[in-house]
């Protein structure tokens, strides 16, 4: 028995709304607008939704609140809070429920107004009792500890981290929806203010508003809908820890395992992937995830991203919307890589379109490298 319904479910609608600044809206307003846009994109309506997959930035019962907001009564409501990776796990869980016939149509949505409402990262997370006395500036300090260890172990440099930031910005400059579109140079990067060594302001994701939504159905039903379905080929997740001190080797994340499982379920390997979206909360993430997802050997990631290899025109297109570093980062970013993967596979990514993209990976990260979840998507004819 197969452990995943490979290609039997599909994303049939996708949308983003309010990336950047969206004043005057509450988080649920933004998510609701993106949801209806995704449904319009699919040619479906709210009354079709019987499975809801949603987490709100601050409302821990957001799945219930959002069903109420939309006026729907889903048979399945998944409100898990594995951080920014929640959305990849929603795709995995929705695929099982759809394939089992437990639900017929899933809505996965997220929205945040953190930039205009608070002007900083909004989080419900309480400091951990055995970390709090040492005042880590979380989440930055936790990722900084990983970056410092990676640099120590593999001799990586700030310039190599900077290559990740520069590539993200170059992609963002091709994306009209991206929040940061002004040119960025290595000198700018190296001169930027240090926050938690070795990470500076330009190693950190943006603080923006934004919303995204996708609609999933079974592939047989998807054929009758408006858009060419984007098949869910494989998805897998792994929780490893909560606080950074419980990641034994700070240079290896559970993406190595969620990724391997997702590839096996999809019947694909890294060489089959045409376009890569990874959750770049910090520059080090992109390097770690490219290694852990098999695009280069462990310890080679910092060299791998050099010379524009992941930038527009490079050998491996990575974070083609500009990523969390330059497109948007509304607290939890995991759904945006999925939407960008869909757009690339549909061939509707405009100036940033990757030619002949058939398979895409959209990888989510939650907490401080804590929860890893990988989704592999395929174009309708793939």
């Amino acid at each position: 028995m197969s452990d995943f319904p490979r290609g039997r479910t599909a994303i049939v609608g996708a949308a983003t709304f309010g990336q950047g600044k969206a004043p005057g809206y509450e988080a649920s307003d933004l998510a609701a607008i993106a949801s209806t846009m995704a449904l319009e994109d699919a040619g479906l309506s709210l009354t079709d939704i019987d499975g809801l997959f949603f987490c709100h930035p601050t409302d821990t019962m957001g799945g219930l609140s959002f069903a109420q907001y939309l006026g729907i009564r889903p048979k399945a409501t998944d409100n898990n809070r594995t951080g920014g990776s929640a959305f990849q796990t929603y795709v995995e869980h929705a695929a099982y429920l759809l394939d089992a016939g437990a639900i017929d149509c899933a809505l996965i949505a997220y929205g945040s107004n953190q930039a205009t409402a608070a002007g900083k990262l909004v989080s419900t997370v309480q400091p951990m009792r055995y970390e709090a006395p040492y005042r880590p500036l979380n989440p930055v300090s936790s990722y900084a500890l990983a970056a410092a260890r990676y640099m120590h172990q593999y001799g990586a440099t700030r310039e190599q981290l900077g290559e990740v930031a520069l590539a993200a910005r170059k992609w963002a400059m091709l994306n009209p929806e991206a929040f940061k579109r002004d040119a960025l140079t290595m000198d700018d990067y190296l001169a930027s203010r240090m926050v938690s060594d070795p990470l500076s302001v330009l190693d950190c994701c943006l603080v923006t508003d934004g919303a995204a939504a996708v609609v999933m159905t079974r592939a047989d039903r998807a054929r009758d809908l408006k858009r060419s379905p984007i098949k869910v080929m494989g998805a897998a997740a792994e929780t490893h820890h909560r606080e950074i001190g419980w990641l034994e080797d700070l240079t290896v994340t559970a993406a190595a395992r969620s990724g391997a499982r997702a590839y096996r379920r999809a019947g694909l390997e890294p060489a089959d992937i045409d376009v890569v979206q990874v959750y770049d909360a910090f520059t080090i993430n992109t390097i770690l995830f490219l290694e852990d997802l098999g695009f280069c050997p462990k310890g080679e990631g910092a060299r791998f991203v050099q010379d524009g290899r992941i930038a527009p025109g490079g050998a491996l297109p990575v974070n083609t919307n500009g990523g969390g570093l330059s497109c948007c980062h509304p607290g939890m970013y995991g759904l945006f890589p999925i939407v960008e993967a869909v757009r690339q596979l549909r061939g509707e990514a405009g100036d940033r379109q990757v030619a002949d993209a058939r398979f895409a990976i959209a990888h989510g990260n939650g907490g401080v490298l804590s929860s890893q979840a990988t989704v592999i998507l395929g174009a309708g004819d793939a």
Partner: protein
Amino acid sequence: MDVTHPDAEFRAFLAQGRFMIQRSKGSGAHVFYPRAVAPGTGARDLEWIQASGRGVVYSTTVVRKKPPEPSYNVVLVDLAEGPRMMSRVEGVDPAAVTIGMAVQARIVDQDGEPVVVFDVAEASA
């Protein structure tokens, strides 16, 4: 004897000037942070032992503050007994703390609470 109030007991030891960690009687594995149940095995056989206080810096960062507020160091220390903990190294420039540095635990009072911090170990100073 089962440990019944891991956090409270840990803090009470600290207040007495003792840095204690746990060890599972069955597996011999040391555990930090304090728990009622051993991770991985689920054994309810955790006992308190005195930590040696010896450790090695596994990773380090400096949280940069706007002067005059001082920047400070945050480290992960691998204890000689095995577990890792977050802490800070005191008595040196926060940026001078390096990965691999040998450190020794000390209990300090921080806002009325006893807290474990580290000094650079004499041998590596």
